[in-house]
């Protein structure tokens, strides 16, 4: 499993509205700050574990990563633990 993802999918759920938002991205589509934030996120959080317990009306992010070697992993990230640079990526998918 590599620390450098090949591609990723970010999904946002929860919030007062409960509206789903998401995006599929190739690594080269990320800006340098977004790449840096993603790398730090992957190093900081273990796969398949929540970064914090679910809380009323907070957003929850699921980050699905496909590594260069084809391995998959999913991080479940609480709103406060999700870098702002990555939060913004899902917004274009909203109505």
């Amino acid at each position, binding site marked *: 499993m590599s620390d450098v993802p090949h591609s990723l999918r970010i999904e946002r*759920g*929860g*919030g*007062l*509205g*409960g*509206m*789903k938002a998401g995006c599929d991205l190739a690594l080269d589509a990320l800006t340098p700050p977004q790449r840096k934030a993603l790398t730090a996120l992957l190093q900081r959080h273990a796969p398949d574990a929540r970064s914090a*317990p*679910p*809380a*009323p*009306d*907070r*957003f929850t992010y699921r980050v699905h990563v496909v590594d260069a070697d084809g391995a998959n992993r999913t991080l479940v990230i609480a709103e*406060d633990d999700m870098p702002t640079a990555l939060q913004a990526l899902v*917004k274009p998918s*909203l*109505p």
Partner: protein
Amino acid sequence: MYQSVHATESHAMRFCPVCCFIVPPGVLRKYSRDPNIDAATRQKLQDTYVETERLRGLREAHRVASLRDPQRFQAELAAHVPAQHLFDCKHRKGLPGKPVATPTNGFKTTFDTTAKVVEFYKTVLGRNSVDNKGFDLVSSLHYAKNYDNAFWDGQQMVYGDGDGKLFTEMYLSPDVIGHELTHGVTQNESALRYEGESGALNESISDVFGTVFNQWLNQWPVTEAKGWLVGAGIMAASAQGKGFTCLRDMVHPSAAHCLSPQPELYGQIDPTADVHDNSGVPNRAFALFARALGGQAWTEAIKTWYDTCTNRHLRADATFKEFATLTVASAHKIGGAAAADKCHGAWGTVGVLKASA
């Protein structure tokens, strides 16, 4: 002296949890038998002695009961009036933000609406703030930049300004303020776990009390369709232009005018889905029950749900079926067999309980 100890039971329980008596009972008893005192006075002393002993028994009963259920008995004694504290996050994420001394504009709107939620809980349900002990209420506005959300963080309410396209300022919808404050009530009562069916119930309870608060505020009957919309006041121009009039509609959870449509029947839900998806089923059950009762939802229907949420039978990991069964019992307690039938019927319609024969 006689008057001072001749308190009613409710008065003694409310104002004298630890009853102290100036004249010791032994002295009263001794002089009530003193032949040197006239008969009328001895009778009064005897009556006082008996009353003193009765109050002593009440005190002991109160002590035992308060040990068994301390929260409820503390609530009985609560007199603190909740104060409000407003903060400005100035579009940053630090909480609570900078204190706001004189509320104007959005802060005044938030202050006034929050005060109304407190009044709703007090006058309709007899509850003193989120903890029933007068918990002071903290609201932070202008959280983060273009933040399209509002939440209860376990201690306070937080409101974003929306992105201006899909959502406008979150405090503009009274039901949203009622929704968030109700998360605080749930936290202090059943503490429903925020995942799975219990999480969907947690969300539904906030929608139910938020919308009924809005109905009470506007004096809308159960037949008023607007009264069952969640978040109608936070839809911005872009959302409205696309035909979205609300986040959720408790009568028609799957309707196209909902920005966040939900399944309407228990058989349609995905147990692993977000709690906001599955809350539509209990939301609809409440709306159907309230409409079956008729009139105004705050006169009986909401008291039924409130009884279920606060009577200590609701488990933190309750399922829809468990919650439904408890509401039917509460409906019977409050409105008798006819109300219980209507409640059971509502849960039957959404597929949580078997339809009545």
